[in-house]
Structure formats: C-alpha cells, structure tokens
C-alpha cells in the first residue's frame, strides 16, 4: 500500500536568480546563476549529482526541446536529465521528479532546475503558447487574463458580492504583494503601489486591471534533494523535508459539464486535500505557517485561498480586508512578492516558491523573515480555470 513520500526526502541546497527583464543573459546564464548558489548551499561538487529534472515550458522561444540544455550548460557528466512540462506547474513537476528519484532509491542526490527566458520575443505580455492542431480550430480566442478574469463574474454571482467590493479585495492582494516585494532583493518589481493606483489602472480583461496581472520575467531556480540520512551526514541541521507532493489535473468536467459553476478550482481542492492528508495536516487554517500561491492574477489568489481551505467558502474577502494574509497576519501569503512581484518565469516559478519556504524554514529570509513558520505550502497552477493542472507541495522541518 503506497504510503506517500512524507519525510523521505530533504532539501540540502537551493538557488534562485534575480527575476526580471534580464536582457543581458540567456537561459544558459540564468541556469548557471541559480545552480552556483544552489551547489554552494548544498556543499557538494557538481559530479556528485546523480540525476536531474528540468522544467522549461516555452521551449520553442527558449532553449528548444529535451533536457540537453542542462547537461550542456552545467556540464553534468552524462547523468540522466529529464525534461518535464505542465504549463506553469512545470517547476513543481521538476521538483517532484527529483523527489521521487531519491525516494525510489534510484539515486542519492538529485537536482531540480527550472528556467524560463520569456523576453526574447520582441513584445510585451505572455507569449502565445503552442496548443496543437485542433484547439486553434475551435477554442475561444482567449488569453490568460481573460480566462482567469471570468472567476470574478462567477464568484460575484455565487456569493452576491458587489463589483467594487471584489475589485477592492483584489486590489488589496496586489498592494500587499507589492509591499512584500520591496523587501526582496531578487524580485522583479520592488516598489510599493497604493490601492488607489491599482483600482484606477487600465483594464486588461474585465475586471482585471494592469496591477491585477503578474508580469513577464526571465529567471531560474533550482534545488538539490537527497535522503535525510545523507543530508545529516552533510551536516545539515535543521532539515527541510518534503511533507507532501500532490498534483491534480482536470478531467474535462469544468469545460464540458454543467456541474462546475466557474468560481473555484476543482483541481486545487482535490490536490490540497490529498496533500494535507499526506502531510498529516487536519486544520490547514491553524497549522499552515505561510503560503505561496499561484497569483498569476489577483483573482486567482483570492479564490485559491478558499480552495486551499485557508479561508471558509465565501469568507476570503473578509480575511483579506482583515489583513489575515498580510506579512504580519496569521498566514502570510506571497511573503516574497509572489508571481506578481518576484516575477513569473514559468519553468522556474514552482521552484522559486519552494525556495522562499526553504529560506523561511531555515531562518535565512532576512528582512522577510517570519516568526517560526514550521509548515509552508506552495500552490503552483498551469492552464486556465476551466482546464488546468494544480500542484501542491508541503514542506516542513524534518523533526
């Protein structure tokens, strides 16, 4: 009977580049930048890595297919390196591959590295994605903002919330992320923005304005994982261990069956419950110390906090306005600035979230340090509300 992978794997090193419009570097340099920090943190030599997992979503405008760019760039000595891809959840998938690699006994020391170079397209905003031959023939002519924006009309309809009230709560989310970003030297955006500016900003996709949408950044992040025994033998203390890794993908019912009302993420609910079970968490609102959610859009964060069972259904607006998720609140959300301000280089984001939790658990988060968070949850989502992949990772200390 599968028992899950709780406490089987520990993180011994992590690295993360400065996220932003890194005009002067390519994807290769970004990988090296993240890797150098990571390998130094781990205290290992490059040739001690047994296997690697690589996350890169938009390879067609980046490094091209396969995981070869990692081997070639980092000169890893012909070890197994696998490319994983699941839209914006790719970074978590690379981490999961490395974790399973170690937990299965296939290897001792595994690397997970994610990179994205989005700024070589010549235009602003998220580049168009390959969707195959069939979708262009019938999918709505949609974009990410327009798809996620629809959560708002559905959520408002369900809970009878006024337009302005919801817009304000969304604005508060972004304002808080901006404030958190100012304390993060690696963040893409490091300026506070006030609520009024956010509310008045140009409309991107009704009702999401400019500041309700995360931007487009280049960056890389990576992690080295191993067994707790090996981690201890390397002198690591305290240990940061993986408590749960869960993933859930749409089965088609959101897009094709009238049972979904459009106001929440089915997958997030399923994956987070499985993750809490795997990690032994019975009361998330009480037990979770910090959360990094996939705030591609403020409205995503808003409904996700309910989907993660951190706020009661219909209660998140109140929690937000009460500051529950602020840096000095009960469950700080996006303490590192989130996708919104740290940035969203797609293949790296899932790992960047884990990076912040890792730093926080080891009390290395400098100005952003929270008071003994104990359990950190990351939520990494790819796709659209009506068709998506959701990854939940729970990290804690290995005691």
């Amino acid at each position, binding site marked *: 009977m599968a028992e899950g992978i709780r406490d089987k794997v520990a993180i011994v090193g992590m690295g993360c580049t400065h996220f932003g419009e890194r005009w002067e570097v390519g994807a290769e340099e970004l990988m090296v930048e993240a890797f150098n920090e990571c390998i130094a943190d781990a205290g290992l030599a490059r040739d001690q890595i047994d296997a690697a997992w690589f996350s890169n979503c938009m390879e067609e405008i980046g490094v091209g297919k396969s995981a070869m760019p990692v081997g070639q760039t980092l000169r890893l000595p012909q070890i197994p390196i696998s490319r994983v891809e699941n839209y914006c959840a790719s970074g978590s998938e690379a981490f999961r591959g490395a974790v399973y690699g170690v937990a299965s006994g296939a290897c001792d020391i595994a690397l997970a590295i994610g990179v994205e170079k989005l700024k070589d397209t010549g235009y602003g905003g998220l580049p168009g994605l390959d969707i195959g031959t*069939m979708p262009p023939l*019938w999918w709505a002519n949609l974009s990410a903002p*327009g798809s996620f924006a629809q959560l708002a*009309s559905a959520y408002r309809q369900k809970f009878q919330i006024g337009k302005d009230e919801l817009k304000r709560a969304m604005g508060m989310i972004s304002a808080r992320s901006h404030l958190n970003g100012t304390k993060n030297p690696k963040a893409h955006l490091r300026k506070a923005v006030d609520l009024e500016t956010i509310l008045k900003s140009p409309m991107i996709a009704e009702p999401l304005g400019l500041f309700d949408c995360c931007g487009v950044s280049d960056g890389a992040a990576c992690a080295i994982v191993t067994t707790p025994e090996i981690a201890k033998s390397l002198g690591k203390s305290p240990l940061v261990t993986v408590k749960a890794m869960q993933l859930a993908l749409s089965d088609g*019912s959101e897009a*094709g*069956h009238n049972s979904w009302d459009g106001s929440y993420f089915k997958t997030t609910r399923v994956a987070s419950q499985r993750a809490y079970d795997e990690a032994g968490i019975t009361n998330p609102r009480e037990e979770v110390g910090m959360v990094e959610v996939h705030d591609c859009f403020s409205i995503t964060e808003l409904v996700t906090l309910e989907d993660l069972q951190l706020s009661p259904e219909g209660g998140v607006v109140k929690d937000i306005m009460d500051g529950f998720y602020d840096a000095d609140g009960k469950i700080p959300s996006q303490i590192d600035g989130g996708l919104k301000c740290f940035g969203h280089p797609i293949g790296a984001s899932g790992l960047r979230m884990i990076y912040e939790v890792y730093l926080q658990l080891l009390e290395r988060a400098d100005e952003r340090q929270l008071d003994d968070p104990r359990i950190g949850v990351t939520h990494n989502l790819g796709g659209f509300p009506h068709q998506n992949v959701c990854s939940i990772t729970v990290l804690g200390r290995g005691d």
Partner: protein
Amino acid sequence: MIGITSCGGYIPRLRLNRKAVAAANAWFLPALAGQAKGERAMCNWDEDSITMAVEAARDCLNGSDRGELDALYMASTTMPFADRQNSGVVATALNLADGISTMDVTSSQRAGTTALLAGLNAVKGGAANKVLVAAAEKRKTRAASVQEMQFGDGAAAVTVGNKKVIAEFKGSHSVTVDFVDHYRDSEHGFDYTWEERWIRDEGYQKIVPKAVKGLFEATGTGPDDIDHFVISSVYGAVPRSVAKAVGIDQEKLRDTLAAVCGETGTAHPLVMLVHALQDAKAGEKILVVGFGQGCDALLFETTKAVEKLNGISGVSGSLARRKEENNYMKFLTFNGLIEVEKGIRAESNPQTALTTLYRNRKMLEGLVGGICTECKTPQFPKADICVNPDCGATDTQEDYEFAERIAKVNSWSADWLVYTIDPPGHYGMVEFPDGGRFMADFTDYDVGDVDVGMRMRMVFRVKGHDSTRGITRYFWKAAPAAPATEG
C-alpha cells in the same frame, strides 16, 4: 404544384451611416454628399458570404426537417474560395446528410436568380424534391467610391419544392447578352464600372424588357397581372424607367431597400423577393428579374400558405435588428482597406491542419457534439469517455446537435490583451440548459451589455483568416439572442 416552399433572410446587424462616410470623404469627393441618406448593411469582421448564407439558410429551414433536402445551391460573386466548394461548407454547417447535391453559382450579378431557376428546374424535371437556394454577397469597394455608398452586404435563401408551396413557379424566360456594365476579374478585388447613363439606356432599358416580354409570352400573362415587381439597381431611376418600358404600374415596384440596406449584389433579387413574400397576400403575382450579362425573369404566384410564414425572421426581421455604426475607420479596417498596426502578438499564424479539420468537420462546422446514452448528458465535444464525473462510460455517445440551441453566459471577460481586430475580445463559458457547455468567442454584442445569465444563440462565423496560406477558418460563436420569444 412547384414553387417556393419557404424563405429566409440575413442582413448583417451593423448599419454604416452614410453621412459618416460622406463626411470622412468630403475632402476628396464632396459629391458623395448626394448619396448620404440612410444607411447600408455592413458585415462584422467575422462575416463573409458563407457565414451569411448559413444564417439565411437556417432562417429559411427553421423548424423543417433538414433531411428532406436533396440539393443546396449557393450563389455569390464573392465566394471565399475559388476552389473548395463553398456550398459544401454551407451544407456541412447545416449538418445536412452527405447524399445531397451541391453547386456554387457565380460570376454574374444574376447568379442568384440563375441559381433559383436551376433549383426550380431540378424539381420540375424530377431530379429533386426539395432544393435550398441561398445567395450571399460581401461587397468589396474602394474608399470614397460611389459603390461604397450604394452597396450593402446581405443574404437570402429559399427552398423550392413540390409540397406546401407558398409561391407557385409559373414560368421564366432568360436572355444572355455579353453586356459588360461592369466587371471584376479574378486578380483584382474591385469592380470596374462604366458610365451610368449607358448602363441604363443600353443595358437595363433594352435587355430587361426582352426577358420580361418573353416571360409574359411563356406564361400567358401581361403587365397588369403583376402585383409585385422585384427589380434592383443602384441607379435609382432604373426600376421606374424599366417598369414604364414593360408597362407595369410604378406602384407595383418593390422597395429596393436602398435606404436601409444597400444593394446586395447577386443576392439582392432574392433579398427583395423574400421581403416581398413576407408582406404578400395570397393570390398575388411576383415578377423577379436578375440583371447581369443578360437577364433572368421569373414569375411566381402566392398561395394561401404565404400568409402563414411562421417563425422566420426573413429580411424584414433582419432589417429590424440593427446597430448603427458611425465609425467609418472601423468599416475600412474590417474590410482590409486600411492597415492598422496589429503588433507582434498578431504574427501567430498556426497552420490549418486539413486532416484535423476533416476528422472533426461535424464538430467544427456543424457544432455537433455528443450525448451519452447511459446518463443522457449532452457534451461538447463528443468524446470516447463521458464527461459526467458520475458516469465516465466508454463508447456510449451519439451525435447531438447544438447549433439551434440557446445558451446562457456562465462567466465572461472583455480582453484587451488578446489580439483581435475588434478589441476588446469578448468570450466566456456558455452553458446549454439541457446539458453541454464550452468556452466560446462572442460576437455581435454591444460592449458593456454582456453579463452573466445573458441568453445567447450560436452563429457560424469566421474564426480567423490566414492570408499567408490563403484559408479562412470557420467555427461557431455565441451572439446575444433576442429576448425569450426566440428559440
């Protein structure tokens, strides 16, 4: 008895205000002010002759059994494809069986009446029992041209057959004369037109009466028998002078719809005919002429059934659904007469995989989904495994048509980021009350009026045009439906 058994019409919703056009062009051609009365119908960016023909056909077929059709003919001089059967696309959009015969009729302003004649003769000769004839035109004109003011976009459709006839076909006569009042060759997009007076005096005045006289002889009728005279021309004086020449009372001339629609090319005789059928009484004779390198003249006599044209919108219903458009720049942009800066995002131009299109043609062109025979849940698209989370049965689905069903908006957005020629792009999750849903592009909406719960009808529109590879892609979109009396 053989004749017309049903009719339908489609005039695009947008109506370009002629004053706005004249004012914009006044610096170049002040004389256009003389034409600046009323409005002309204008296609939305996602409409063309095929989409309009589909709309007119749907209207015409409203409520009838589509399985009765033996043939479908489409007439247009603005067919989207020179070599890919356009009437075939229309037939697929209507989800007709493949055992029918289709034909594109083109290259002349009387192609519409010629196609109608061909349908009638097919029934008369026993080759078919029921034929749908659709005519559609999306006009192409240069900026600041007189034609730009006079032409309009539109379509009409009739079924002809031998059961439940609403207007009996009494006979016809055609003359063929290579009178080139204007021409358009296959390389150039615009008409080249000769002088108005010559067209009137040497063309209409001399050729139409020949056809009409021949018709009177063939049917044993005379000018006094005619109750409705359908003759269209951009030249306002022509219908009057031709009526005089053939002896028909001016009172019997049908309104050419110049003030509210404009002249819809080869579709216009059928547009005017449908308009006539909508207010004709029983026992009235309708003379229809089509003029273009000769003339077709057809005679119909209405039956009692014409007074009971239930459920169709027709031309008058279409005309009533109007939205004034004062933005001439928009008209020019939609018609590719002005190049706006589309930005790099618009460069994305995926190939249209013909193998994929073919495998899925019922879904893509006919909006056919599936219904699970186990749990009875309709779903789009049809799939191997039922989408109902409580069912999940395998290999249980049958075809299920969504096109004629009304949907409701469950969620939506207006998107300024996505590339579209008519921003912001509107789309959302539409849901069919009996089951089924999908994320659909919206069209024909008023910005600011879209909201959750809105009733939508599905319409067949241009999904995109790939000018590099020369193909137009079609799919269905959701458009606001009229309040509950519709559908």
